[in-house]
């Protein structure tokens, strides 16, 4: 009799929790593929297509399907590292086939040469170019991701990719070198230590 009660109780519990789980799976259904979104948010969103996919999201989808994580040159090593952390795989060096990591750049239109053909506007994935037909065009530097896509379509070749120079606000320290010869070269980067070293208190 007790056995029967136990079984009945367990069955009842199983039904109740099953129902709750079932309800939750419908009620709190996750839209989209969360891992793709997570990967996508780690990619630099330049939409440059250097990874050979038509944008960051498609590459994120490909990564979720097992594509290599080292194909994004604008993201560079930091992105690879972050992806490796997220996906729990070993980071690999950047695949040189897709380009090299370079300093951040921003597009600049040589404005007196622009003929106002609007081709660059059509190419820019983030609407960072301002202009109208037959008018001089200009790049909104703060919106430009440096993807390079507007350079090719310009018929008069008046768009330059200019490296973004660090300012006092954006500058940060370099990584201290750990090899012997470079220490002498970069010694200003090292702590100024007192002649007589004391002991820890």
């Amino acid at each position, binding site marked *: 009799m007790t056995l029967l009660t136990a079984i009945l109780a367990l069955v009842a519990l199983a039904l109740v929790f099953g129902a709750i789980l079932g309800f939750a799976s419908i009620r709190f259904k996750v839209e989209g593929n969360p891992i793709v979104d997570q990967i*996508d*948010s780690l*990619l*630099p*969103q*330049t*939409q440059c297509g250097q990874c050979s996919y038509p*944008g*960051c999201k498609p590459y994120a989808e490909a990564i979720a399907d097992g594509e290599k994580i080292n194909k994004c040159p604008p993201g560079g*090593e*930091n992105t690879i*590292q*972050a992806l490796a*952390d997220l996906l729990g795989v070993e980071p690999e060096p950047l695949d040189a086939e897709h380009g090299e990591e370079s300093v951040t750049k921003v597009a600049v239109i040589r404005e*007196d*040469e622009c*003929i106002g053909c609007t081709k660059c506007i059509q190419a820019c*994935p*983030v*609407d*960072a170019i301002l202009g109208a037909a037959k008018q001089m065009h200009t790049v909104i530097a703060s*919106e430009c*991701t440096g993807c390079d896509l507007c350079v090719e379509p*310009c*018929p*008069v*070749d*008046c768009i330059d990719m200019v490296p973004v120079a*660090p*300012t*006092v*606000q*954006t*500058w*940060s*320290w*370099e*990584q*201290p070198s*750990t090899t*012997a010869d470079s*220490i*002498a070269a970069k*010694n*200003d*980067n*090292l*702590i*100024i*230590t*007192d*002649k*007589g*070293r*004391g*002991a*820890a*208190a």
Partner: protein
Amino acid sequence: MSQAIKLWDIHGGIHPEENKSQSNQLPISTLPLPKKLYLPLQQHIGSPSELTVKIGDKVLKGQRLAEANGFISASLHAPTSGTIVSIEERQIPHASGLTAETIEIETDGLEQWCEREVITDYLHTDPIALLAHIRNHGITGMGGAGFPTAVKLTPKDDDHIDTLIINGAECEPYITSDQLLMRERADQVIDGISVLGQILKPKRCIIGVEDNKLDAVKALRDSIDAHPKTLPFEVKVAAIPTKYPSGGEKQLIQILTGKEVPHGSIPADLGIVCQNVGTVAAISKAVLEGEPLISRITTVTGDAVSQKGNFETLIGTPIEDLLAHCGVDESKLFRLIMGGPMMGFTLHSTDLPVIKTTNCILAATEQEFPNPAQAQDCIRCGMCAEACPAELLPQQLYWFSRSKEFDKAKHFNLFDCIECGACSFVCPSHIPLVQHFRFAKGGIRQEEQAHIKSEHAKMRFEARQDRLAKEEAEKEARRKARADAAAKAKAEKEAKAKLAESQESPTTNTPTADASEGDDKKAAIAAAIARSKSKKPASNETTPSSVDIKPFKVASSQARAAHLQAQRALNAAKETGELSKEQIAEQEANVSSLKKAYEDAKAKLDQAKNGNTVAPAQEQAPSVDIKALKVASSQTRAAYLKAQRAFDTAKEAGELSAEQLTEQASEVSKLQTDYENAKAKLDAAKNGSPTQTAEAASSPTVDIKALKVASSQARAAYLKSQRAYDASKEDGSTSEDELSAQLKKVEALQSTYEKAKAALDDAKSGKTPASNPVAKEKASPSPSETFENKYKQVKVETSQARAAAKQAQKAVDEANEQGKDETQIKELETALAESVQTYEKLNSKKLVLQEKVKARKAVEASAVSQPKESKPAPETVAEQPPAEDDPTKKLKELKVAASQSKAAWRKLERELGKAQEAGEDTAELEQKVSAAKTTYEQANEAKTTAMAALNS
């Protein structure tokens, strides 16, 4: 006065050699006035200040040069009177060695003060006004980073400050500026505390001074005793044990109150505000003397200078001057440091100014600061963790920073590191730990920035995608609506036409038999075919001059049917309200033109009926003949247009196979030729009897008008076919052969158009010899224009070919992705290769043409740039582009030409480079490059000449 204050201890800390006695022996001395002062606009944390003066301005001592730009910013004042000689980018004393905008003042030695604003009765002044006063006088933190003081003193609403802590610890070795300040100007410090008391209303104030400065402690205590009235709260001086880094803000707070500032919060959250003694003194100067922050006490020390001591230095004084005054021995100077030996940074030049945060200039010899030893591996001794005042695990952080595992470093509270350098100091392996941490912090900040930026870019990208999708959907909807309306109209018309034809000409309705089957679109095609067939006889029949009523009848009834159907379609469209206003207007215009056509046709029919008996006479009367021809012409035109429209609709709907499309296209072009034939005949007839036809006789321009119409129609036809071709190209379903067939057709149409245009021009020049030079100028296309047309065409083709190639690529990719079988992929790949080849061919053609165009343009340009006397010469006039009379426009064109040719040249050069890299044969390319270069040079020359001409 016994001031027993309970003190707490901090974790870790170190005892480096103090080295303070070298510089704290002598009293503060003043520096002779430097000749030049250099004031960077950024001497503080936050945004650079905004200039309020310009070059050449005379400024007075204390006059504002730049004002705070934003909340976290500070203003800047002239340290003495003088003239502003330059404002330019100069290297600033900053660890980065970067440049920033700097004001250069040539001092005049007069020390003329501007009007000063003094608040003597500060104890009865609104704290807000005091804060504004502090802000206006450019006060920033003098101890460390230079954070704008007014910002730090503006508490959040819910903060109540109960403890004011004044930092006089000065724990870094070598530096004695605060010690001298407290020793000699204790009253200033106490006055400043009293001002702060008015602003913050604290319950107590503690001044923390290390016990190696007992002279300063005594001076402060004496001063407090002398100021009982202005200090309505308890002020105590605490002598704290000497230990580095007790002067860190959080460390000092912990020593004096026992409270730890939690991770991620600021002292104000605990009801504490901490200020440096130097800052407090500066506040008192600003309020009581009206003197903005224009000078500070700077320690000059180190074995490379003979006269070590503390100096009242104007902000902007070149460090060179300061060192020279102290007797620097350049040969011994090995390392120049701003700040202390623990947290300062090396300067690479003496050509830098003293700024608001320069508390110490350390000119060290090699014995004092030898190059650091080579770092060894971490031996996990744990000394760094023992020394760390922030209770971090430096060796852990070191690993993460070194391998750039920033997430983990952050997790181990990297941002709690105060960069004191205690860990590096004790590390037996000489690992530059704090440098690694600075790097990691910078890296994390950069990553955060990058992440914000990428989120922003993503948002913008998605917004753009949405916008494009919406536009596309709208276009699609419009297209569909149009297609539906057209299909409906066609179907109805078909039925009507069938009826009409069966009555009027039973022999011609055979092809319509299959029109009743299949869907609407098929019916539409069939209808088009049927109509074209049914109309051809009409146009053929009109060519003989015998006037037959039958064709008129047919024409009339067809026109009527067309009109009625169009009307019906329009009504239907209006009712459903699916169409936009413009579309309706368009349709209405269509309907009314159809109506007119019908009325015309009817009139003709009536005329023909009436005049049947005098037909022979009409035959001889050219005017009638012309009319008949006109009718025929307009009919064929209508037919052609309809067919064209049907074709367009079908194409847009995109449901037809490629063959069907080509079939239709050929129909359309046939109809067009018919129409053109008719037109030509009409024109010929008109021309042949110019005196007999009333209109032609009355004015020769009528003929030109007709030609114009013909020409513009031909042009429209050409453009349409071009568009059709483009569309079919883009939709990518048509094969290469079909495309090339279409292209041929397009070209044929173009030549027709060009012929028509030429005829028109001929007619114009023949009829109006030089009577209307403007018209003539407009009409005569410059030679480069024709070239350009060709070039444009080829360019269009090229880009199409490129698009095709891209599509092919995509197809291959897709096939690959979907894992289609090998043969299929192979096929696609060959197609891709073909299209790429086509593209390349076209591209080279394009480049050649581009060269030509440019060459022509350059020639023309040089012709244009000739002096204006050449204008009367008719040949030159003909050569000149239409914009000739507007020199700026002309110049613009020339500029475009020049930059285009430059681009072409550069592109070619790049290609050449690539070819060379790939080891291909480059002789041809080289030739091209040099040709392009000459073209560019010509164009450029023309441009410069034109520019010069314009300027003169």
